């Protein structure tokens, strides 16, 4: 059965506090922190972008897997901040992790679920035997216009997974998707910042797609919420995933280990995948993980994962240590690092 | 090899010369040198001109054609010489070799740089092409940065202090007071240096030579011609030139400019002199640390002791070996391609007894460096 063979994550070191963003726009920091369920977010260094984040995460995944680069047949990186509009991130990642030329790649884009979409394709490749191992994941230096409420959460980071049939540490028992044409959040060509429908991003968008996909998955594999040791939902802020978990019948204990959003914000395509990486960092053999992403536009990919006995070899608590290794920067510096002064 | 003498000197004012272009600076220096030699343009048989980057600084290459034409040196062979900041010193050496070989009897060796047509950021970028652009410049190593890394290591290894480096700048500014061509004629204190803006830790603004426009030229002649034309010929007793890795990180020892050591060795051998015989020297002080390293690599002091030697005043006029009596690159200014020639002009003036800070010297040395030490040219002059 296809599954996760190894994972790697990357969170830039820089953080900005909600207070410092609020001060720039006259917001009430305490109210915002309470409303969004976050206190600070990660910010890329001035020399970091989706490609560098994906490379660092992929290098860590490859190193952890102990695989030879020759065994990787495809690279699929999902993001909504690929450095180029035309020219793949995947070739940069493939080259920087030492792949030769005998692999395929294409970039994925589906708002915040581009990374899980890439993982589904990777699983299909592995299952079909088209490749022994595939690198798939999500990374973003999330865009948000200055002053937009999104600015409090739009963060930087990513997680990359090696998917294969052999040496699996977490089997992908099932994955499926729920998709509709729902314009809740978008960015037009050549626009720097996304637009969104405000409250419309809630019920008809985030909640509907995550609940439907998750229910479909559980029905398909015959599970109930209590069958899972961990559940990870897309994390646009600290509130939405907590509420959707409750609506679906999951507990705070099940979602807490994967709720990285509270500490680093919403890393868009990296968001639910960093949550998954954090869970894999601590999961035990035999444990069951539910993962449901959400991408505006809109769709959710849901995964039923079962941890195998090999997991301990790969666990470095990397997500936790990266969350804790941080340096705070000012709002002007944040504007500079994210290219908003250019 | 025939004996060669310097018989004419010419230079422009050094500074921010907004109204002057590259060609105009070259022509003024060259023609002044010809007049000083008591000859006319038609007597000049060959031209060697040093410029680091006419192309990047002033968008003009093929200076080997343009400069002789505009100078009135009709149809003569002319060579543009490039070795970054050592272009001038190297032009002098090539002209020297030409005459010494017997090919020509009278040559002009010139140097020029027009730097202020560009903004500071661009100038820094152009200067960085004197380091390895592929492995140094692109990764953020600027020229101040490279010398700062040498300074940092010198401090770490030998206990050299920032005040000792500042003493170089203080001395050179004092020396420039009597040089009417100098960019800065203003005395400064160690405190001024220490409190000046940090550019590249530990190098501060007043540790650094400025961005300068200027031209300089000398006329060289064979022994026969020199004795015929000049009452005060100054002989080139030794000429040495050596190279080293362009990159600081590829050097055997980051604190030794091997190119300087080798070039000096050749010049001393040819002149049958030792460092102790040198009575006055113009050395390449693009940054204060560079003068300290030069004192060591030229053999004036032991490795590591240049800071104390300078602090004691041994390189001031009246000290054991006066260094950079012209004001050096630091205060006289550093139009990179012209610097090597301007150094020779000061050396000749010292030996002619015409220098502003006269030392009465009979033997003088000049030391011109390209990049962070990729090229060095050393000349020894005698009365």
């Amino acid at each position, binding site marked *: 059965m296809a599954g996760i063979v190894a994972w790697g994550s990357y969170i830039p070191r820089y953080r900005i506090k909600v207070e410092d963003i609020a001060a720039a726009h006259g917001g009430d920091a305490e109210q915002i922190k309470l409303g969004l369920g976050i206190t600070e977010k990660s910010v890329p260094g001035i020399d970091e972008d989706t*490609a560098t984040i994906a490379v660092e995460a992929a290098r860590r995944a490859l190193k952890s897997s102990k695989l030879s680069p020759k065994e990787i047949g495809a690279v699929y990186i999902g993001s909504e901040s690929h450095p180029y509009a035309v020219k793949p991130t995947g070739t940069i990642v493939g080259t920087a992790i*030492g792949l030769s030329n005998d692999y395929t790649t294409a970039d994925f884009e589906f708002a915040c679920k581009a990374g899980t979409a890439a993982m589904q394709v990777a699983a299909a490749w592995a299952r079909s035997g088209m490749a022994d191992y595939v690198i798939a994941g999500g990374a973003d230096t999330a865009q948000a216009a200055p002053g937009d409420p999104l600015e409090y959460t739009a963060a930087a980071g990513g997680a990359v997974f090696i998917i294969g049939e052999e040496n699996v540490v977490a089997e992908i028992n099932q994955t499926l998707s729920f998709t509709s044409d729902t314009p809740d959040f978008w960015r037009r060509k050549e626009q720097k910042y996304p637009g969104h429908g405000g409250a419309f991003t809630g019920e008809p968008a985030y909640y509907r797609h995550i609940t439907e996909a998750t229910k479909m998955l559980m029905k398909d594999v015959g599970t109930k919420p209590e069958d899972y040791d961990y559940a990870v939902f897309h994390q646009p802020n600290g509130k939405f995933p907590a509420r959707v978990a409750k609506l679906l019948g999951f507990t705070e204990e099940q979602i807490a280990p994967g709720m990285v959003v509270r500490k680093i914000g919403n890393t868009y395509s990296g968001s639910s995948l960093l949550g998954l990486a954090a869970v894999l960092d601590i999961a035990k053999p035999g444990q069951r993980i539910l993962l449901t992403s959400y991408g505006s536009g809109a769709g959710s990919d849901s995964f039923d994962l079962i941890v195998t006995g090999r997991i301990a070899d790969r666990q470095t608590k990397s997500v936790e240590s990266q969350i804790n290794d941080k340096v705070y920067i000012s709002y002007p510096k944040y504007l500079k690092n994210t290219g908003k002064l250019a | 090899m025939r004996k060669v003498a310097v018989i004419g000197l010419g230079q422009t004012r050094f500074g921010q010369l907004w109204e002057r272009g590259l060609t105009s600076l070259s022509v003024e220096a060259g023609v002044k040198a010809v007049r000083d030699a008591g000859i006319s343009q038609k007597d000049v048989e060959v031209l060697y001109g040093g410029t680091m980057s006419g192309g990047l600084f002033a968008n003009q290459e093929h200076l080997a054609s343009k400069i002789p034409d505009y100078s009135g040196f009709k149809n003569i062979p002319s060579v543009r010489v490039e070795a970054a900041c050592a272009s001038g010193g190297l032009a002098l050496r090539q002209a020297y070799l030409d005459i010494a070989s017997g090919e020509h009897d009278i040559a002009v060796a010139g140097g020029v740089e027009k730097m202020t047509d560009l*903004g500071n950021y661009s100038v820094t970028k152009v200067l960085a092409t004197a380091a390895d652009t592929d492995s140094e410049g692109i990764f953020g190593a600027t020229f*101040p940065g490279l010398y700062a890394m040498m300074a940092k290591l010198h401090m770490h290894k030998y206990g050299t202090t920032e005040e000792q480096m500042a003493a170089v700048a203080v001395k050179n500014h004092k020396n420039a007071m009597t040089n009417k061509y100098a960019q800065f004629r203003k005395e400064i204190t160690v405190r001024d240096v220490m409190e000046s803006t940090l*550019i590249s830790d530990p190098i501060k603004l007043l540790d650094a030579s400025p961005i300068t426009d200027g031209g300089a030229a000398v006329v060289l002649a064979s022994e026969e011609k020199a004795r015929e034309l000049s009452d005060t010929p100054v002989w080139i007793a030794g000429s040495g030139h050596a190279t080293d890795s362009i990159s600081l*990180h590829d050097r055997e020892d980051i604190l030794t400019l091997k190119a300087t050591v080798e070039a000096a060795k050749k010049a001393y051998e040819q002149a049958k002199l030792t460092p102790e015989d040198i009575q006055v020297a113009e050395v390449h002080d693009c940054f204060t640390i560079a003068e300290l390293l030069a004192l060591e690599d030229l053999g004036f002091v032991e490795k590591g002791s240049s800071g104390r030697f300078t602090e004691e005043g041994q390189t001031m006029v009246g000290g054991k070996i006066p260094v950079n009596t012209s004001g050096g690159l630091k205060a006289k200014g550093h139009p990179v391609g012209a610097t090597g020639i301007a150094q020779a002009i000061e050396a000749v003036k010292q030996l002619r007894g015409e220098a502003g800070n006269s030392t009465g010297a009979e033997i003088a040395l000049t030391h011109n460096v390209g990049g962070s030490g990729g090229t060095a040219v050393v000349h020894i002059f005698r009365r």
Partner: protein
Amino acid sequence: MAVPKIWRKIPEYYNLIGRQCPECKELYFPVRDVCKKCGCLEMTDYKFEGKGQIVTFTITRTPISDPEGENTEIPARDVPYAVAVIKLEEGPMLTAEIVDCNFEDIEIGKNVEVVFRKIMEHGAKGVIQYGYKFRLC
């Protein structure tokens, strides 16, 4: 800078691929086509691990600002920034930026490891050049 030149440097800049002399086994980084020691021209690729020590360093404060608008290249760095000469574990030395650290923590002799970063944007419309920088470890 020309695109072919950027492309040509990818192995060296992305993955620290230098050279080894097959005759005398001497290692080189940055890339050299001829062995400095024995003159051999048939050099082979050699991948360096990316671990090393700081030999010397500086914090550069020269502003990256171009009010004249003469340059399109935008270095991916902020001012001040740290640059060091680094001695790789395998022997050769290189020059690189030290990122993600407090400048007070940088010292001669400290250990560093390679990271993958943006080096330069060749104008807002041009290509993005990636390569090596280092961080304390």
